[in-house]
């Protein structure tokens, strides 16, 4: 029994509309992938390497195959093809030697690497049998550190291809001159640990093979559905038209969950092989070794300043531990890391180099704010150190170096992902002033001073950041209005819980004037939506939303056109509101959208020379990436007995261009901050020196709880809409997390009186105790 829709004003662009997806989710009526059960289904269990680096001398599957309830046990030898999983984001670098096979053949390179696969009648028996697969390993020494991996005498992970995949370099200006003429040079070596997105729902897939028609149906792809369809088509040698991907609700993503992983091939392949539906739900322990990990960078960074503290140049050498394989997102994180590092500052000369290195750990891919969480920490912490060394106020140091409004559009000689970097709109200084005011940051600083005067260890900091949104160039959208007046929006993107359905509905309703309750948003279904690019890179609203806006405008035009005919009125006199089309100023002269849709029957449409149905299909092609920006403040207190860092206050201001739903934008910011605090203080995917993961459960991988995160203040600014899309929107998903590492590190540095003491995240209690000892007890 569903709640009756309430009558109220249409909630369009800019409204704090409660979400349309909430009702089903609150009732426990969402449909996640493990909620899909297909009669007769089998359950897959992956046998994963328990060693970090070894040759496979043999695999004995006989005992497993004979176990009760087992239908099939397969190894790489059974797969037929040995094609690796292809790149999705290809920047033209040959990475073939580094791509991952679906199942390991002769060598395993990380704990968790799939080696064999078992299908059985239920998940319990599948796990029983998987335990019996006997893999004979000949262990090799593991390589666990990027810089060590690059040494000449390092163990090589593969024959014929070195451990360093590539060194990406970006530069402009005369860096040597900048440093040699500098009044001050400030250096630091800063590292960010390995952590990841850890959505609450683990991965999962269900595949059903209709052998008679040769059709495959797959539930569970969550991010880049159409890409999965195309890759499967190639790897399974099936036409795209015979693969039907079906969307489900997704329990979070954060960039890690929806890529094409080995299981995305194995489940459908096994369904075809066994002739039975096959289901797989990743368990949390395997999640921690198989999902893309993230971050793990070391930055050796330096900045040159003139005597007034103006930046003359910036140099950064980065070592990026990418784990054992290059996954479909390729080099994008490394590329962004080195491309985004200098911004939002007026840096006349820059030289960035990033070594992309293979180690015997789980592969590293994008996680919310890839490359920017790390780079923002490196750059902003360097500035925090510089402010101390130059005896300047940290806010003032930033203020004088921020790109000024007068310099917009700001276009240095630099490309990111092959596209020139252009800051096309904005007022970085203006946002800083607004934020300082809104947060009353001066009072935070004063409060921390008072606390220190009482002997407490407290500090504050500021960190500026620039985001990037809208990779992936285009998106598709469609709208259909039924004869009952209901609206269906089809999007090429996906939702993993951010509220995309509501946002798309709000955008469409701004043109169509229909209450949100009458709207359904469909995503991830390749039979209904022939093409799409997906949900990543904070692109859903910016690119997907623009496509929906175009489709809604085309639909509204058509509605007016047809209604004009029905009402015998002029098209330009008609408006859409409350689910109908009527003559402006006289509501009684109108027809409902349902009636308009009914008038778009096939025969009438044929006679009119129009496509049947009330609706439209549109594609939006984005001319330019967007670079939204923001600033964060933190205040922390350190417990001298435990080393615990308490984030007492946090504030994040963000220039979004246009917020379709400010409530959801704030939700994205606050949620991102909580994740950022995880990476700054709690979360670390630790490895033993034998390459064993030591934090492969929620007992040891510490996701912050309600008692670990503070109240977060937000300021969503809409001062600088982007000229590059019709909404003016700049993307929100990655904003909150971006500067947390930098802000927390800076505040800890301030608290202990020396930001130079802080050089690594996460700031675990032990690290904090050590830096307390270093800064408070210089004599010993």
């Amino acid at each position, binding site marked *: 029994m569903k709640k009756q829709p309430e009558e109220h004003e249409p909630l369009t662009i800019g409204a704090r509309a409660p979400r349309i997806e909430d009702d089903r989710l609150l009732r426990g009526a969402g449909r996640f992938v493990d909620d899909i059960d297909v009669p007769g289904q089998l359950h897959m269990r992956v046998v994963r390497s328990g060693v970090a680096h070894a040759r496979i001398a043999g695999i004995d599957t006989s005992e497993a195959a004979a176990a009760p309830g087992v239908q099939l046990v397969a190894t790489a030898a059974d797969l037929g093809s040995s094609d690796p999983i292809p790149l999705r984001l290809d920047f033209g670098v040959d990475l073939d030697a580094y791509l991952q096979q679906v199942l390991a053949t002769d060598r395993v390179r990380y704990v968790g690497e799939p080696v064999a696969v078992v299908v059985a009648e239920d*998940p319990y028996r599948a796990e029983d049998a998987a335990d019996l697969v006997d893999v004979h390993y000949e262990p090799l020494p593991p390589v666990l550190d990027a810089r060590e991996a690059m040494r000449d005498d390092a163990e090589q992970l593969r024959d014929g291809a070195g451990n360093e995949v590539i060194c990406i370099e970006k530069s402009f200006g005369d860096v040597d001159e900048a440093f040699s003429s500098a009044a001050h040079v400030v250096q630091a070596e800063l590292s960010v640990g390995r952590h990841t997105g850890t959505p609450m729902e683990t991965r999962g897939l269900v595949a059903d093979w209709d052998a008679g028609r040769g059709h495959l149906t797959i539930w569970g792809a969550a991010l880049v559905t159409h890409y999965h369809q195309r890759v499967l088509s190639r790897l399974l040698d099936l036409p795209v038209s015979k693969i039907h991907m079906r969307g489900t609700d997704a329990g979070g993503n954060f960039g890690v969950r929806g890529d094409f992983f080995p299981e995305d091939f194995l489940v459908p392949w096994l369904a075809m092989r066994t002739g039975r539906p096959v289901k797989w739900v990743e368990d949390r322990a395997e999640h921690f070794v198989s999902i893309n990990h993230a971050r793990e960078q070391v930055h050796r960074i330096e900045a040159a300043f003139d005597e007034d503290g103006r930046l003359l140049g910036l140099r950064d050498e980065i070592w990026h531990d990418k784990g054992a394989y290059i996954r479909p997102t390729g080099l994008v994180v490394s590329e962004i890391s080195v491309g985004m590092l200098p911004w939002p500052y007026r840096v006349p000369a820059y030289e960035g180099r990033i070594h992309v290195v293979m180690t015997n750990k789980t592969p590293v891919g994008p996680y919310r704010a890839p490359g920017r969480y790390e780079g923002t920490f490196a750059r902003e912490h360097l500035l925090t150190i510089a402010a101390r060394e130059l005896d300047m106020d940290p806010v003032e140091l930033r203020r004088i170096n921020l790109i000024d409004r007068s310099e917009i559009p700001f276009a240095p000689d630099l490309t990111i992902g092959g596209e020139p970097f252009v800051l096309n709109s904005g007022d970085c200084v203006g946002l800083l002033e607004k934020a300082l005011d809104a947060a009353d940051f001066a009072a935070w600083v004063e409060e921390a001073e008072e606390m220190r005067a009482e002997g407490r260890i407290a500090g504050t900091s500021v960190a500026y950041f620039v985001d990037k949104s809208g990779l992936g160039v285009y998106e598709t959208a469609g709208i259909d209005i039924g004869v009952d007046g209901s609206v269906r929006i089809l999007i090429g993107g996906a939702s993993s819980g951010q509220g995309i359905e509501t946002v798309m509905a709000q955008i469409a309703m701004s043109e169509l004037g229909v209450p949100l309750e009458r709207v359904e948003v469909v995503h991830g279904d390749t039979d209904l939506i022939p093409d799409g690019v997906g949900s990543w890179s904070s692109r859903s609203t910016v690119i997907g939303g623009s496509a929906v806006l175009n489709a809604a405008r085309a639909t509204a035009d058509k509605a007016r056109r047809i209604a004009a005919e029905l009402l015998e009125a002029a098209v330009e006199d008609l408006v859409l509101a409350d689910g109908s089309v009527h003559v402006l100023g006289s509501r009684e002269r109108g027809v409902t959208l349902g009636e308009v849709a009914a008038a778009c029957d096939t025969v009438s449409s044929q006679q009119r020379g129009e496509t049947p149905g009330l609706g439209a299909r549109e594609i939006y092609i984005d001319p330019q990436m967007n670079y939204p920006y923001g600033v964060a403040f933190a205040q922390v207190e350190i417990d001298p*007995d*435990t080393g615990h860092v308490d984030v007492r206050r946090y504030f994040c201001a963000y220039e979004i261009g246009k917020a379709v739903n400010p409530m959801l934008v704030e939700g994205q910011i606050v949620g991102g901050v909580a994740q950022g605090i995880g990476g700054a203080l709690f979360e670390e995917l630790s490895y033993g020196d034998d390459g064993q993961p*030591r*934090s492969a459960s929620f007992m040891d991988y*510490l996701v912050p709880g309600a008692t670990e995160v503070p109240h977060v203040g937000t300021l969503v600014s809409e001062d600088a809409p982007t000229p590059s899309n019709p909404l003016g929107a700049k993307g929100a998903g990655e904003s909150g997390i971006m500067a947390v590492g930098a802000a927390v590190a800076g505040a800890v540095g301030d608290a202990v009186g020396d930001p130079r003491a802080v050089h690594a995240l996460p700031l675990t209690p*032990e690290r904090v*105790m050590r830096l307390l000892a270093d800064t408070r007890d210089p004599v010993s």
Partner: protein
Amino acid sequence: MKPSAFEYETPERTDEALELLARDPEETKVLAGGQSLVPLLNFRLARPDRLVDLNGVGELAYLRRDDGALRIGAMTRQATLERSSIVEERWPLLKQAIRLVAHPQIRNRGTVGGSAAHADPAAELPVALTALDATFHIRSARGSRAVPARDFFLQPLMSAIEPGELLVEIETLPMAANSGTAFVEYARRHGDFALGGAAVVLEHEDDGSIGRAAIALLGAGPTPLRASAAEAALVGATVDEASAAEVAALAVEDVRPTGDIHGSAEYRQGLLRSLVRQALLQAAQVPRAA
């Protein structure tokens, strides 16, 4: 993460449970609250042939005052102890400890006996019971015995309960009048296993000096540890900032905590010193029980 297969028994009386345990003591595990055991089963780190589930043995779930002593049936839920006003008044240390055990959802199901028998060196209840010199009553098909706390915890996850035996009751003596208690720990997140902790009981003399002290340490070694030298040093002394710091240093002087990814041995030792100091100061401040 699905458990291996096992046989499952549901006795309704203690005798019945003992009989079931006697059949194949080595390969049988007792299932109490299951809040530690079932995760281990799910990880397949434990694969017993048979589980004897005590949740149907109603006679093992009780809280009783008997001659001033507190008798806790092994199957008493942690939440029951937490909600007991008598425990709060007379054995405040237990309440202080139990509030730090994981989260309410765990305490609703977890049992006092189960936590003791599991003997996790980072668990709160074993440390509190060690500080209180509790007695553990153990039964088997052959008979019964009582083991004092100092002999009960043997190794990480190993108590004095032998295969075939069952912990049936935990007994703590009445606390002296004029006692103050404190339980202090540090966990990285609320409800996590603590990196260190200290349970303190101070019996105050009329002149304000300490007549007797008990200090038990959490996470200081493979089992809950009593800091005997520090306890002895407190007798006749008064607790202030300086003496608390001094005694705390003494308490951790000889402990050798095990380091792990959450904190090295060195870090833990320093942490323990701070926590003992805090606990001493808190216990000294507790209004004296009438």
